[in-house]
């Protein structure tokens, strides 16, 4: 577990260094994720230790959102002033994103058999 955690941190660190050195607009951890993905492709998959540690970390992913989410206490005034555009934008744009993605994907895969085996 310590080895896997170290590996994840090393990839994050390399990602952060690359993002800063090249002043990329992409967050360091995302570059770290892409690099780790490439490393896994080359190496042929994660070891058991890495798989387990990543599994544990991602299983409790929602816990990691809590401290940032609690930052809502800082935005009482903003939410009171802007709740309408924020709520409408969230609901409408989430629905639109689901509809557009589903329609495009269905149109492009229609006539092919899906991986469940049923013709669409």
């Amino acid at each position, binding site marked *: 577990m310590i080895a896997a955690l170290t590996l994840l941190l090393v990839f994050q660190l390399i990602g952060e260094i690359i993002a800063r050195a090249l002043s990329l607009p992409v967050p360091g951890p995302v570059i770290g994720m892409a690099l780790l993905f490439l490393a896994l492709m080359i190496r042929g998959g*994660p070891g058991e230790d890495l798989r387990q540690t990543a599994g544990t970390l991602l299983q409790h992913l929602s816990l990691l959102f*809590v401290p940032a989410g609690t930052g809502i206490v800082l935005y009482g005034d903003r939410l009171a002033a802007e709740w309408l*555009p924020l709520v409408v934008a969230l609901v409408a744009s989430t629905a639109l994103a689901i509809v557009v993605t589903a329609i495009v994907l269905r149109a492009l895969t229609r006539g092919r058999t899906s991986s469940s085996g049923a013709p669409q």
Partner: protein
Amino acid sequence: MTPRLDEIWVYLSATPLLGLTLTLLAYQAAFRIYQRAGFHPLANPVLLAVGLLAGVLLLTGTPYQTYFDGAQFVHFLLGPATVALAIPLYAQWPRLKAMAAPLALALVAGSLTAALSAWGIGALLGASRESLMSLAPKSVTTPIAMAVAERLGGLPSLTAVLVISTGIIGAVGARYLYRWLGIDDPAVRGFAIGLASHGIGTARAFQISEQSGAFAALAMGLNGLVTALSLPWIMPLVERLLDR
């Protein structure tokens, strides 16, 4: 005994211990409620934990910064957790390759729709620039959305709140949209909900079917990558074109 209590409070509010412990306690309480509610999307554990903690902070008059001094140890793990998303992404690679072209086009269409419609609707209704830049990355997983919002000039902690809300909206609403559109392919259903509603949508998709869940996880990872790579260039361009 009041003076002693005061002394204890002075000590506690000055160490990271309280913020960290409160975060873990609130999350475990919230998760237990989520379990009791049969994993109903409205009983989302992040939402409940944030509600509990926000209530405690407001009632005790504790500044967010004091709380975050302790909670940052949990927050820090978002970095390595983002890197760890490479592992499920790798596990889905064979499926991804088999449907590569349709998935790529749906990904680009959905990703742009998610960001630009949120920005456009918010702008039409008069949201501030900071709010708009916090809204734009709302469909991707929190660590990526927060980092992108920060790059765009949004407010990362506001983004976290918007991202979590987006996840809950998608998880609750998707099934009605699919019924309306007549979409029953689990791959399509999963991919769309994962793209629009990241981890919360993915968790929902896994409850419907294994295949839906796998495609949702794939869409979540890919949309995170596409959004992180594209929004920092697209949003300034959109602003310049519309002269905002």
